[in-house]
């Protein structure tokens, strides 16, 4: 079966039709990209005119001053830049969350995929139910619990809060991937005498490294730019992750739009590139339930 090619009819699209299609797509791309380009232009504006209705992409007198201020601090007021501190906090918290998510989830996903044990179906339903918990519902009890344990405004507190969502989600994704690995490989190994544990280490783990990487990446990316939970748990500036840090630029009365935009660009570029690079796997991971084989 030849897959992936459109019908014979569209191969012979008329030039008019092709031009129209390209036109529509170009308009769609402009719509998709424009708000992003606006952030870039705001970041390039000189400091004395942060707000204006100027729509040009590269503003007049474009300058990199905002980037300098964000990265290295303000020499005039002698305030140091916290930008790298925020990034460091985010990095530590996100890496740990993703790691813990994997530690707790990977073996469970294997069990759900390969074994039939009492409690398997209820377990899967339970996992599904956890996805139905509305956003922020568990945040309140977690907040009170962390307050009682004196873990507010600490790395551990936020890591624990993020792990709440990363563990069930990781189990679901990893189970989907394990389901697609044929069981014959492990059976062959066991006929040759390796135990279950041996089969796990020598066959499954190497084969599932891509899926472990994807689950890690997914957890990483969802906690990396998370704002609302971090806002509740972290309360003092030295502990801020970068979304919280950036919001300090948006003061009550005067938003430092230029610096805000510059910081946004610097964080968004690597994050976006990472996302685009991994988008293929993310999509297949999310729809594993629907497409079989």
């Amino acid at each position: 079966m030849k897959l992936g090619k459109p019908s014979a009819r569209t191969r012979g699209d008329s030039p008019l039709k092709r031009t129209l299609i390209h036109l529509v797509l170009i308009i769609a791309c402009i719509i998709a990209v424009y708000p992003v380009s606006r952030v870039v232009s705001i970041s390039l504006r000189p400091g004395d005119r942060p707000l204006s209705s100027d729509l040009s992409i590269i503003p007049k007198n474009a300058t990199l001053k905002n980037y300098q201020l964000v990265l290295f601090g303000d020499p005039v007021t002698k305030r140091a830049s916290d930008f790298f501190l925020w990034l460091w906090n985010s990095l530590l918290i996100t890496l740990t969350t993703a790691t813990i998510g994997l530690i707790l989830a990977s073996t469970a996903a294997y069990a759900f995929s390969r074994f039939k044990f009492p409690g398997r179906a209820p377990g899967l339903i339970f996992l599904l139910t956890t996805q139905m918990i509305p956003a922020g519902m568990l945040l309140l009890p977690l907040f009170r619990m962390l307050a009682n344990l004196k873990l507010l405004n600490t790395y551990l507190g936020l890591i624990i809060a993020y792990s709440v969502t990363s563990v069930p989600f990781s189990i679901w994704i990893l189970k989907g991937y394990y389901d697609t690995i044929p069981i014959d490989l492990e059976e062959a190994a066991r006929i040759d005498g390796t135990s279950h544990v041996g089969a796990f280490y020598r066959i499954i783990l190497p084969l599932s490294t891509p899926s472990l990487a994807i689950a890690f990446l997914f957890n990483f990316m969802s906690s990396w730019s998370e704002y609302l939970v971090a806002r509740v748990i972290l309360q003092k500036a030295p502990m801020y992750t970068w979304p919280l840090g950036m919001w300090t630029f948006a003061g009550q009365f005067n938003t430092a739009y230029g610096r805000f935009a510059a910081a946004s660009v610097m964080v968004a570029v690597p994050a976006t590139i990472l996302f685009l690079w991994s988008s293929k796997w993310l999509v297949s991971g999310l729809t594993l339930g629907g497409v079989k084989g």
Partner: protein
Amino acid sequence: MISLTSQIMSSSLVTVLRFVLSIVLAWLLLEGVIYVLFHRPPRNVGMALIVLLLAVALIVLFGRYVWPNKGLDTLKKAAIGVALLIAYLGIYWVLGSSKASKLGMPYLLLAPAVVGIAALIVYPFAYNVYLAFTNMSMTTIRTYTFSLQNGINNFKSVFTGVVAHDATFWQVLSRTILWTVINVVFHVTGGMALALLLNRPMRFKGLYRTLLILPWAIPQTIACMALRAEFNQNYGFFNALLSMPLARSIGLRPVNWLTDPVWAFVALCISNIWLGIPFMMVIILGGLQSISKEFYEASEIDGANSTHQFRHITLPLLRPVLTPSIILGTVWTFNALNVIYLITGGNPQEKTDILVSSLYRAAFDFYRYGFAAAFGLVIFLFLFLFALVYIRVTGGLKAAYE
């Protein structure tokens, strides 16, 4: 000058590494215990009861005499606990049969996740139920009481009272349903349209695809802040366009995007649709590419036109991919706390709140903890009931069990 010093880096790294190390040690301990429990299980029911009673007795003794003891520090208490555990496991091992239980392996694999989920989800959920029966708020944080009456008050005010000043539960609920329906409809149609356009050999296909995914690829916090700036009355892109002579000549005027309740809702819909179409487009494109062209060729021989092909070939064959994606998209839209909170904050006057943003604000902007706990439970029950009805109507989630 930057404030990140190597001292900060090393001390924070140490904190985090210590935490991960303790998780790994707890993991090993848990696995060891499960292994022993299943590798030499009790020989018969009688033995099982003895072993169970011994465990309960040890736990009770520990809890009554060791844990509350002020004379011992935490390390000593933990050491005593571990010693007791090892002694117990020794007795268990000696008394056990030499035939390992087959259930050992899966439960060994499941144990860490079960403990994690119990601690991270089940316990907070139970605590939430507890909180719903208290009158905890900013003013009563140390003096709150737990009682049935408090619970009744909380649930009553969820249904009849206001979240902060204006919006009632039913207003927010209907707005949430409207929000979800509008967004999902546009997500699917927009995504489908773009995917159909892209599903052909063409130049720049990769470039188009990459640019069109951008709204999804950008960190959502940043995208929301950028969109909020665009709806600014004086400096945003939309009003700049609407102020142009061309727009004025056809009678359009700049809009009070974020200060008018209706237009704020429209702005939020526009934003969320912009954010959500790429996901649908990518999924549908993937689905379209796996449809064999032989179906189309065969139908052409029979004289089908493209509308007919779409309805009778494309749509049915897309269903296995569309259904989970629509479900996912619906859940994400329902839970779009980020978008609502960052772009309008529920304002003006909570007229743009959806259920989840209302909950977040009740808890963290208005500090009504008891009320918010009850509110959260009510939302969860609504979602749960809806899911049950949906499953009943669509005939079961067979795929989930397999």
